[in-house]
């Protein structure tokens, strides 16, 4: 672990920690040549998505491939998938913090920022999902609330989780803002420095970095870390209730909340791997984030991946084995019927291959983990489509005798069109876009946290040597 937290460069620099601060502040103080072009391209993609949404509002959800035979499809899958990937922040920051896993330190800021940007993007999928978005205000206006509705509680749960995620991002930022303010003193005055100085002053508030305050702040961070875990669990559980409050095979499943939460954790860690890899490459953080980080994250990821594979197996086995027409037909359609191709793509790309990559020592490298994570993020999005679309296309009024047993009835079909695809691509582009903006203002490494762990490590070493 010391090779990570005390990279060789530390020993060559007289003041310990100075190099860390420089690296963490570099994205804030310098604009790389690729920054503006990247922001421009991503921005155009996002604008095109907004145009597609306006087109949908003008012409109705029908232009997005929806029909009465497929009333829920891509937007609902995106809602689940994008809120799902925000779970990586909770895992890396909260769970690894509570288990005192020290190697997490350089990753926490990136993981929390990823959570903070993906969660609102996921929430935003409520808007294209709604048939009548002009009435969205009814969800925040109490006289309209119907407290027996799972969707209303989804809204409450996700909003609460967003608030907690923002606080969890903000609290560890306070001591870093103190360090950053200190550092900006040496910089020549410019608009850029002035804006950031006033931002950091707001973030710092009346925090004065005394040991007592430091202790209290750490206590608060610890408390939020504990609170955010049940909140994260509640978000995807309640999200699954919206599907489960139904008589449709595939939605009405007791396994659904667990299934949703594990999938979210799995894809969340995978996205953290991708953002950490990108940040390491783009902002030159190789001295702090090594291949060992990726391998460890890879292990955390496939632990969830194996659990998810197990849950998938359990669900399909039991429903397929049961004699009820609806459940058997649903499993048949997924495993061997019209949804077989996306399902088996998930099974190999999102289930088996990541496990194999992590199992083979030769492939267990940074590249290997990044490849596995890419597969996981994509495959889990496809898996969300396989969760959402089949039950929504199920015929509920059909004759068990008509047709060939499990294929009875007329299944509905969802038709992909350019509108939801454009909106989905825009939402995907919004993740790097917002992250690039966030790291223009916020130190990319949690300087205070890393230094604290560093000092604690030195003291432990001293004690050990005495």
């Amino acid at each position, binding site marked *: 672990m010391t090779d990570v937290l005390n990279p060789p460069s530390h020993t060559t620099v007289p003041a310990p920690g100075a190099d860390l601060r420089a690296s963490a502040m570099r994205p804030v103080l310098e604009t790389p040549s690729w920054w503006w072009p990247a922001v421009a391209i991503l921005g155009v993609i996002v604008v095109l998505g907004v145009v597609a949404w306006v087109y949908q509002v003008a012409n*109705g*959800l029908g232009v997005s491939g929806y029909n009465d035979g497929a009333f829920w499809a891509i937007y609902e899958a995106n809602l689940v998938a994008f809120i799902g990937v925000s779970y990586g922040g909770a895992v890396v920051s909260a769970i690894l913090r509570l288990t005192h896993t020290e190697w997490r330190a350089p990753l926490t800021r990136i993981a929390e920022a990823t959570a903070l940007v993906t969660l609102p993007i996921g929430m935003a999928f409520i808007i294209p999902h709604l048939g*009548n*978005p002009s*009435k969205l205000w009814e969800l925040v206006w109490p006289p309209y609330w*119907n407290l027996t509705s799972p969707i209303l509680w989804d809204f409450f749960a996700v909003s609460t989780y967003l608030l907690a995620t923002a606080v969890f991002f903000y609290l560890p930022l306070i001591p870093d803002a103190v360090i950053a303010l200190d550092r900006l003193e040496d910089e020549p005055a410019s608009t850029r420095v002035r804006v950031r100085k006033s931002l950091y002053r707001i973030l710092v508030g009346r925090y004065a970095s005394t040991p007592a305050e430091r202790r209290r702040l750490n206590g608060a961070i610890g408390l939020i870390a504990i609170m955010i875990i049940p909140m994260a669990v509640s978000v995807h559980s309640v999200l699954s209730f919206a599907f489960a*409050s139904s*008589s449709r095979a595939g939605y009405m499943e007791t396994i659904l909340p667990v299934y949703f939460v594990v999938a979210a954790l799995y894809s969340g860690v995978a996205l953290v791997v991708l953002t950490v890899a990108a940040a390491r490459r783009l902002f030159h953080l190789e001295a702090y984030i090594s291949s060992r980080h990726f391998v460890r994250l890879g292990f955390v990821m496939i632990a969830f991946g194996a659990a998810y594979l197990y849950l998938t197996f359990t669900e399909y086995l039991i429903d397929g084995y049961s004699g009820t027409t609806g*459940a058997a037909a649903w499993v048949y359609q997924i495993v061997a019927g019209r949804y077989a191709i996306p399902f088996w793509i998930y099974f190999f790309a999102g289930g088996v291959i990541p496990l194999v990559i992590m199992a083979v020592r030769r492939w267990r490298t940074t590249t290997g983990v990044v490849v596995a994570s890419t597969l996981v993020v994509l495959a889990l999005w496809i898996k969300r489509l396989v969760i959402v679309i089949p039950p929504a296309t199920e015929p509920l*009024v059909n004759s068990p005798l008509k047709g060939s047993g499990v294929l009875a009835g007329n299944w509905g079909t969802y038709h992909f069109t350019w509108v939801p695809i454009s909106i989905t691509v825009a939402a995907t582009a919004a993740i790097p876009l917002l992250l690039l903006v966030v790291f223009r203002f916020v130190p990319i490494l949690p300087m205070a946290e890393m230094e604290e762990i560093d000092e604690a490590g030195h003291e432990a070493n001293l004690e050990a040597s005495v």
Partner: protein
Amino acid sequence: MSESDGHLATSEKASHEKVTIGRRGFLRAAAISGIGLGVMGVVAETVAAATQTSTTTPTGPTKQWCMIIDLRLCNGCKLCTTACQTAHYLHEDQTWMNVYTMQNAAGEDYFMPRPCMMCEDPACVPVCPVGANFRTPEGLVLVDQHKCIGTRICMNACPYDARYFNWTDPVPAPRQPFAQEPEWPVPQVKGTVGKCVDCAAMLPSGQLPECVVNCPMGVLYFGDLTSDVAVNGNGATVKISTFLAENDAIVFKEEYGTHPRVYYIPGHGQDLNNNASAS
């Protein structure tokens, strides 16, 4: 709302005579109940009250609407479907009153009309986040399309596939005898859910729902559980309790506990898929 007002919506119907007979039969049924036509005001008031989330139960006796579908008589002509779509200005795939082709135990096709089941414990009502679905004191489950935000969770909850969304612009409708209200959702509102309303706005003036009036086979009976009388489009009047008991009537998907107010009279080995629940 005079009778002639209500007539506007049905003036285009093919069989005018049938309409009159049906209405006369229905009026007789209403007279038997001892309530007469004066119930219109009560319906309007109580429906308005129900729309205002605070449900004030009416003091007097109310109608409890129900439908009886005699599967032995249905020949699958789908005139009920088209009559409904014409009256409510619906798209072709918005089959509020749908006729499914099913298969009986002998392998023969039979036909099953499926309106909204007007459940006593509807699955669609509690799931709506903004309370756009509600159940009137007369036992009608309706949608307030001015409130609906279009989450479609009610389409997920309904075990009967009885709900239809307005995915595109609705069919334009000329000026209607009734305001666009849950009882007469014409024209439909883009981006909201629509479904069979048992032609709720026409009931107070003693008119039968469009599907019932236009069924040439007399499959569909419409009636009131309070007065225990139902009537079909051909003018046949039945005492509901006796009719249901004598013909071994069943409800669709009884196991879901939704307590539908649509009763099916099965004929020849028809089990309505009741032995094969969805999950």
